[in-house]
């Protein structure tokens, strides 16, 4: 284990979040079992009040996930100097088998918490808590995922032994790599084309859905596909323009000051777009519920707006990076 302040901060923070989420889930399960809206009993009243606590905990957890995602990457980045051969976070995360799973879980959990909060907000807008069982059912796997994430992260840091030769980002993301991540090896042009195609599709379906109030599923689906394609495109196609180096494909170095921290807005836009897109899909099946008929279309419009502006922001930043880069590729 490496005794670094960042590691300590991440571990202690994760344990705090796990503890509060377990607490929340405990009451979530009680709500699942004892909920009876028609009852005026003390128990029902106290359960109703617990829902506020659980929603607050989830909101805090969402914020925490976002911060810890970036801190995790920066810490890995810092630790790379202790790991001979690792030149940035990409190599440091590859130092043992727990690094990348922990990172992916962090992203998944952020999105899960976001989707949960979207469902929760929908549910709260109705007078009869129509989604209460579903949302507390969802709380349990999210808690489990966050526990797994904390475990992976702990394993990653515990198993991290300084001075292990790992493949640095140069090796990991170059054509010579023999590792599992072969994203950079994919042909550039089809990746770029599918990125632009998915972006255009998402923007069109989003606009259609926003104005006509229909086609939410299609939008949600295409936004989700765009999320995945964007990550591919970022590594394979977009990031070299920011580095102005055709062989540099690292998805983490764009978070550095040398590249004006451009990675932060990119990832924020990506995460917001992906999460709200998924959230739209998650609440749409309930638009038939009587008490939600009024609120869902309104809420969905707001979400589409947020989602669309995130994707637009991502598109604008990428386009700006590509157009004003000194790098030219054909």
């Amino acid at each position: 284990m490496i005794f670094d302040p960042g590691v300590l901060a991440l571990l202690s923070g994760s344990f705090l979040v796990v503890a509060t989420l377990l607490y929340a889930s405990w009451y979530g399960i009680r709500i699942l079992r004892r909920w009876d809206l028609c009852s005026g009993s003390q128990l029902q009243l106290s359960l109703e009040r617990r829902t506020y606590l659980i929603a607050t905990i989830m909101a805090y957890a969402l914020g925490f996930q976002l911060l810890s995602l970036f801190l995790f990457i920066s810490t890995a980045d810092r630790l790379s100097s202790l790991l001979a051969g690792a030149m940035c976070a990409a190599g440091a995360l590859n130092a043992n088998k727990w690094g990348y799973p922990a990172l992916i879980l962090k992203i998944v959990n952020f999105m899960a918490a976001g989707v949960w909060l979207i469902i929760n907000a929908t549910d709260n807008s109705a007078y009869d808590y129509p989604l209460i069982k579903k949302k507390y059912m969802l709380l349990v796997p999210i808690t489990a995922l966050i526990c797994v994430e904390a475990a992976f992260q702990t394993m990653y840091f515990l198993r991290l032994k300084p001075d292990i030769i790992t493949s640095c980002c140069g090796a990991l993301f170059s054509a010579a790599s023999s590792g599992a991540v072969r994203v950079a090896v994919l042909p550039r042009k089809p990746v770029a084309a599918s990125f632009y195609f998915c972006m255009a599709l998402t923007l069109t379906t989003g606009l259609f859905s926003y104005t006509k109030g229909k086609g939410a599923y299609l939008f949600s689906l295409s936004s989700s596909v765009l999320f995945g394609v964007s990550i591919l495109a970022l590594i394979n196609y977009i990031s070299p323009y920011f580095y102005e180096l055709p062989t540099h494909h690292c998805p983490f170095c764009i978070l550095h000051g040398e590249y004006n921290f451009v990675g932060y807005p990119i990832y924020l836009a990506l995460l917001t777009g992906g999460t709200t897109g998924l959230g739209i899909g998650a609440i749409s099946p309930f638009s038939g519920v009587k008490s939600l008929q009024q609120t869902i279309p309104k809420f969905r419009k707001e979400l589409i707006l947020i989602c669309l502006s995130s994707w637009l922001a991502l598109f604008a930043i990428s386009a700006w990076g590509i157009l004003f880069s000194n790098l030219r590729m054909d």
Partner: protein
Amino acid sequence: MIALNQLSKVFSAGRPNEFVALEGVTLSIPALALTVLKGPSGSGKTTLLSILGCMARPTSGRIMIGDREITSLPEKFLTAIRRKTFGFIFQQHNLIGGITALENIMLPAYPDGEKFSALKARAYGLLDLFNMTSKAKFNVGWLSGGEVQRVAIARALINDPEILIADEPTAHLDSALSYEFMEIMKGLKEKGKTIIMASHDPIVYESGIVDFVVAMRDGKVIR
């Protein structure tokens, strides 16, 4: 206007200290009138008022406000109804100390997020109604008993509620101020408010402006 059907409220149900505050109350309270709940302390007046005012939920029974059933609404919606429909005047004035009269009056409207200047104008309008404009920026700790009472009434009126609920409003006032209070109530009734009061003060329930008196004892309506 408000209809109560077989309303009961039990505190600490199932425990040794179980206490039945209301039992089978069926009552209808007409709109645009002043109704007084009369009875000795402990007769369930306050509990009834807090259930009426959507502050507490009954253990059983039903409440209709207008044509809306509110019995099993979640707390969140009860609060919204309470804020929009009811104005409260408490036994103690229950103003928040350390802030100005103006801020106290505006407090109930804060969660609505209305434009601040408009809200302030409305609060000044109410202060003006009670000749209190000059005291707007006074800390409520510096106000006299009568002024405090008028601030409390202004606060109850800020969201322009249909129904005013007052719990023993004159308990801490001398007779002169009590008469003044009833005059204000009269004016409000004439402006179209429904007023429900709980009181065992003769100045209140024997006053000529009271339309209905409901007598209560041991959690039951007796007349």
